[in-house]
């Protein structure tokens, strides 16, 4: 989708003849507010669901299949990425029935390494782009960053929005940038088709729940395939209430447009117990159509091993311990 197509589509959705900052502002500020106390209470209530036995087994396997196994360190090496890809292929060598993860997420210079290591699997390679994590670079640099990853074969691009522009109310700048990056994700079908665009809102910097809802709608309007909570570099990263708001947003967006946009909480989800709370929230908010790796992902690194440990526990009745899962 080119950036002018995004603008046309946005104009139609807003019912305006010209997409201006003012038009975007009145649309976003016209969205229903989010009451923080009520939203936190609802998320906490969803977190009290008791998921046992068969339901737990299903949830653990589903969560594993939704993991974007991530390494985003300055110290990343080819060896580290190859090791992570091996883990993605075979999360648990002691049990081949363990599902594979959805994707491996790396910085964009390491995309070729990951592509090579995952050849022959259905596991996607996701690259963070657009001057991740701060997003503080010119549009030209961000576009080049994105094209680089797309040309290297990344299936998915995780971009960051310009939080400075968003917080100062320059919604049109945020929109234009997302639309432009979406354009840079284009790729001929012969080379695998366009890369999927995940738009990172960095909700920890947006601070208010109203902002989370507005940023979610803005990203969807501009062409996001996924909306993602966080880079993992800012605290707080993913929280259950913020994910709840984003799930409400994609649910409402489908009501309005028929399009289904994915949601990816990322950062800070480390235990199976937490992952199951997220799946409960997906199921009871957006509904079962989102219980699919094409619609919901976990951006995580240590979560996978806890899921595997809990899987052992369900299978054998006893906890195996950290030495029985591999560190990659």
């Amino acid at each position, binding site marked *: 989708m080119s950036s002018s197509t995004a603008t046309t589509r946005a104009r139609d959705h807003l019912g305006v003849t010209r997409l201006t900052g003012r038009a975007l502002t009145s649309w976003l500020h016209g969205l229903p507010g989010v009451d923080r106390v009520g939203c936190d209470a609802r998320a906490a209530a969803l977190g009290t669901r008791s998921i046992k*036995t068969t339901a737990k087994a299903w949830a653990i396997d589903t969560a594993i299949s939704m993991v974007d196994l991530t390494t985003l360190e300055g110290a990343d090496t080819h060896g580290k990425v190859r090791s992570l890809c091996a883990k993605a292929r075979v999360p648990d060598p002691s049990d081949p029935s363990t599902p594979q993860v959805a994707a491996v997420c790396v910085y964009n210079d390491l995309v070729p390494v990951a592509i090579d290591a995952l050849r022959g699997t259905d596991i996607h390679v996701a690259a963070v782009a657009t001057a991740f994590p701060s997003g503080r670079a010119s549009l030209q640099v961000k576009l080049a960053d994105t094209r680089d990853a797309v040309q290297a074969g990344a299936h998915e691009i995780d971009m960051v929005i310009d939080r400075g522009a968003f917080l100062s109310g320059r919604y049109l700048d945020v929109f234009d940038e997302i639309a432009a990056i979406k354009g840079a994700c284009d790729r001929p079908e012969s080379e695998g088709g366009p890369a999927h665009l995940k738009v990172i809102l960095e909700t920890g910097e947006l601070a208010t729940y109203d902002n989370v809802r507005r940023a979610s709608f803005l990203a969807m309007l501009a062409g996001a395939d996924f909306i993602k909570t966080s880079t993992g570099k800012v605290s707080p990263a993913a929280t259950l209430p913020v994910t709840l708001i984003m799930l409400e947003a994609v649910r409402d967006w489908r009501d309005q447009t028929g399009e289904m946009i994915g949601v990816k909480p990322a950062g800070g989800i480390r235990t199976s117990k937490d992952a199951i709370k997220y799946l409960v929230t997906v199921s*009871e908010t957006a509904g079962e159509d989102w219980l699919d790796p094409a619609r919901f992902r976990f951006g995580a690194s240590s979560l996978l091993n806890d899921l595997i440990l809990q899987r052992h526990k369900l299978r054998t009745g006893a906890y195996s311990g950290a030495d029985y899962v591999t560190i990659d």
Partner: protein
Amino acid sequence: MTFTYAPAPESRAIVDLRPSYGLFIGGEFVESDGGGHFKSISPATEEVLAEVTEASAADVDRAVRAARKAYAGPWGRLSGAERGKYLFRIARILQERAREFAVLETLDNGKPIKESRDVDIPTAAAHFFYHAGWADKLDYAGLSTPQGGSPKPLGVVGQVIPWNFPLLMLAWKIAPALATGNTVVLKPAETTPLTALLFAEVCQQADLPPGVVNIVTGAGATGQALVEHEGVDKIAFTGSTAVGKAIARSIAGTRKRATLELGGKAANIVFDDAAIDQAVEGIVNGIFFNQGHVCCAGSRLLVQESVADDVVSRLKRRLTTLRVGDPLDKNTDVGAINSAAQLQRIRDLVEVGEAEGAIRWSPPCDLPDRGFWFAPTVFTDVSQTHRIAQEEVFGPVLSVLTFRTPQEAVARANNTPYGLSAGIWTEKGSRILWMADQLRAGVVWANTFNRFDPTSPFGGYKESGYGREGGRHGLEAYLTTGATR
């Protein structure tokens, strides 16, 4: 893909029920003098849980005498600080035995375990903690006589409580009565006597002096004997408006004081600028919490016409995720109706609603074969003249009405003989304050609903009763102050 929750039942092994119970009078369980017995059943399965004594007038007399003796004797002479120690002890025991109380409450009442576990029992303990703190500070409650004398207890208090929050209503009644130095004869509802009898054991465990708390089980006749007993100085009643009026009539012209906490038909008012998703949660919590067996339930949804369709469609979608069934399952949201009689009343009124032309809707849900069950129900196209918009259903039944302006919302909300509670949903702070000032309701919640806290006074306007429970105001109902009398 579908996420199917496996059964997650709470174990009932922690509850050790005796086959039959006597009356708790003078610090011990005693046999009745001429009274009969009745069975307490689980409304979810109709299984008999225990046999309970129906206290006779002679039993009530014994209980009142025991309470008088304790008032004249050890309890009346204790300092506030000493009374406070007992209350703190009871509060801690309730917390220690919370799971036992929660499971028993759910068995006897039919409410979901998550509600008894997360709301009823913790809030009951909180009432004892709160009032324990007041016991030695009554001189500073602003209730002293004009000459500066300390406020004094009333004496023996007769308390009659309902079946919707059995232990919590007990705590609302007993904690302030004891903190202020009164003694108590309490009659729990006939369908839910078991947690009150377990509480009697807590009184023994706490070494509460004999006769300070007496518990007489029974039905209406037992309650009447208690209300009419000449040895009682004050009546505290929570229940239906019809019974409340009868009590007020029967004690007219006597020295007895009374506080009555009666029915309600609360309006939950949603404006077009409300935080819609949270408002929908508030609507659900307002009417489907505790199967709608809540006197302050938000049983009338008043929604601004410009957002009515959106709110109702979101509400319906949300209701399809409610889990109705086994109250002991930790994932159950809506449990059993408390009794066959209550189920019949709900059915009757719902039939009336349909006959009056309102549109009835329920989410698809499989109800168990045994026990008393009613699916969450929403009526749309309801008019102010419909009986379902006027009468208290006391069940999981919501009537949806619309309004155009804030003035109309206030007029409709107040257009009922009741006045217990109301809810306002708007992002506009000034409107919340204006509405709260206009609404004739004892409790007005803003952007929330059905929140209870011991520090906050609770009670009604109009036919929802008089007197307040909780907070500093609640103490006044159990003290003679000179300042006000």
